[in-house]
């Protein structure tokens, strides 16, 4: 016994006893009904009867019915029409219908299948054939019933596991991002540390030079001047590098601190873009190889949003643009913000390869990607290449703000994403 598990799909599948099945027999001729009823009841099934289409539908709706055996040629409503109606009604559409018919030519069989019948039995009926077909279909039906039961359970499991998948994929992507960021932090750190050490050595040398009673009787003024300039330069270097470091850390902090509070706040769209751009400068490819045309409104743009989510949207858009321009001679990203009625518009245009017309409706689908999956043969320091979740997440975040994302693209010329976000209150006149 496998009773300890509550999950139905882990239980072995068993077909119920024949006496638990109810079969409806539909025929306008008593003799035909009698013949079938006799065979089936001897076999152990329960049966009920209808002598026309209307009655059959009524019986199928109101009585437990596991299988229908039906004549085709009946007055008023024939078998085809009856079957069609049964299959249209969600209360009866899963009951298998077997036609019992003398019309076994292709045309009629096709017609039967077209209205949704599962099978047919030729007339005159043969006992063995009736038993075999009925048993097959009841088994199938029992299995189907079980499956639809599993399905509800499965849907929950699938929904949960795909959510889990999205989470882990994103986490993997985030791990990559963290690595990239840490790598970027090391640059300025190397400068700061090295500069202070170099500065100390230089100062020691100056001290030696000017110390009375040192190696030389008189300090070499030009040497001292040169060393002093060097020390000052070292300190300047350390200072700029620590500024760079602070900027990176600040934008990291704003990312992670707001990760916890996920309530929309009043923000300035332009300053989010500016701080993200500053952050992206840490990416050497972005810094050196991408031309940027930035055209933001002079006034701040108040919107209600969650800062890290918005930053994420922006990052996704930019990394898609960078990917799309990979290897192109002209790599330009144009970023602009505009105001229109009660909306802020953020427009991001690239000069990349564009999106094929057959793909344009798919790009927001989860897991749709034209990029290779991330693997060892493709170690890219700038994060995931092609989980296909980027735009899906973007659209979700923007829709949550009651906004929308529109895309325009010409294959070979480039792509523009227009992101529309409702304004939060009036624009300050500053």
């Amino acid at each position: 016994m496998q009773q300890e598990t509550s999950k139905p799909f882990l239980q072995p599948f068993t077909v119920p006893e024949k006496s638990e099945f109810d079969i409806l027999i539909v025929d306008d001729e008593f003799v035909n009904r009698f013949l079938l009823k006799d065979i089936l009841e001897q076999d152990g099934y329960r049966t009920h009867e209808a002598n026309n289409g209307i009655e059959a539908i009524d019986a199928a709706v109101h009585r437990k019915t596991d299988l229908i055996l039906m004549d085709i040629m009946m007055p008023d409503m024939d078998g085809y029409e009856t079957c069609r109606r049964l299959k249209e009604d969600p209360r009866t559409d899963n009951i298998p219908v077997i036609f019992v018919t003398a019309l076994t030519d292709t045309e009629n069989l096709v017609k039967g299948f077209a209205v949704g019948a599962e099978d047919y039995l030729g007339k005159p009926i043969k006992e063995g054939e009736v038993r075999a077909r009925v048993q097959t279909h009841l088994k199938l039906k029992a299995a189907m019933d079980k499956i639809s039961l599993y399905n509800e359970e499965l849907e929950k499991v699938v929904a949960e596991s795909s959510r889990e998948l999205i989470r882990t994929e994103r986490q993997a992507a985030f791990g990559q991002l963290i690595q990239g960021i840490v790598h970027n932090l090391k640059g300025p750190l190397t400068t700061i540390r090295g500069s202070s050490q170099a500065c100390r050595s230089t100062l020691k040398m100056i001290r030696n030079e000017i110390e009375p009673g040192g190696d030389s009787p008189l300090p070499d003024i030009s040497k001292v001047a040169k060393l002093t300039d060097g020390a000052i330069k070292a300190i300047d270097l350390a200072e700029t590098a620590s500024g760079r470091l602070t900027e990176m850390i600040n934008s990291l902090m704003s990312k992670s601190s707001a990760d916890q509070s996920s309530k929309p706040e009043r923000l300035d769209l332009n300053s989010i873009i500016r701080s993200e751009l500053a952050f992206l400068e840490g990416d050497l490819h972005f810094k050196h190889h991408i031309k940027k045309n930035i055209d933001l409104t002079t006034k701040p743009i108040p919107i209600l949003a969650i800062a890290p989510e918005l930053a994420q949207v922006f990052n996704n858009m930019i990394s898609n643009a960078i990917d799309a321009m990979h290897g192109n001679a002209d790599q330009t990203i144009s970023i602009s913000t505009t105001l229109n009625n009660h909306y802020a518009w953020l427009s991001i245009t690239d000069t990349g390869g564009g999106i094929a017309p057959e793909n344009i409706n798919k790009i927001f689908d989860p897991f749709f990607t034209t990029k290779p999956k991330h693997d060892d043969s493709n170690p890219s320091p700038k994060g995931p290449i092609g989980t296909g979740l980027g735009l899906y997440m973007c659209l979700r975040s923007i829709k949550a703000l009651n906004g929308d994302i529109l895309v325009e693209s010409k294959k070979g010329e480039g792509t523009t994403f227009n992101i529309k976000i409702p304004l939060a209150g009036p624009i300050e006149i500053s």
Partner: protein
Amino acid sequence: MPEKRNYKILIVDDDKDILSMLEMAFLPTSYDVTTIDHPLQAYKMIENEHFDMVISDIQMPQMDGLTLLRKIKNFNGMIQVVMMTAHITISNTLDAFRYGAVDIFFKPFEDINEIIAAADGVAVKLNRVNSILHKLAEGEK
């Protein structure tokens, strides 16, 4: 202390701040230091001018420092190469030595003076080898 001839050092890193910092650190020494922020240009310079030592980063966008190392060693095995990297991995380290680097330093550096000490070590080696080569050349005349 070794007799420090004015050995020529080329320092390669795509981060200009780090280049300035290293230039600073070498200021009190007698080495003749040149810096360049692009590995491809670095290789051109090595082909066209004489350098005794190269100190190169590994992660650079235009060319991997390990590739630069191999090209340098292939071009002139006498040039001594010191690697530096922020990407501290076993494979980076093993590859650096496999391809003939004399040393490797990890960013941020423990102590910048270690790099100068490494250069001094290379200078001792070059002094010795050069003096032997010099004698050999004399004898051949």
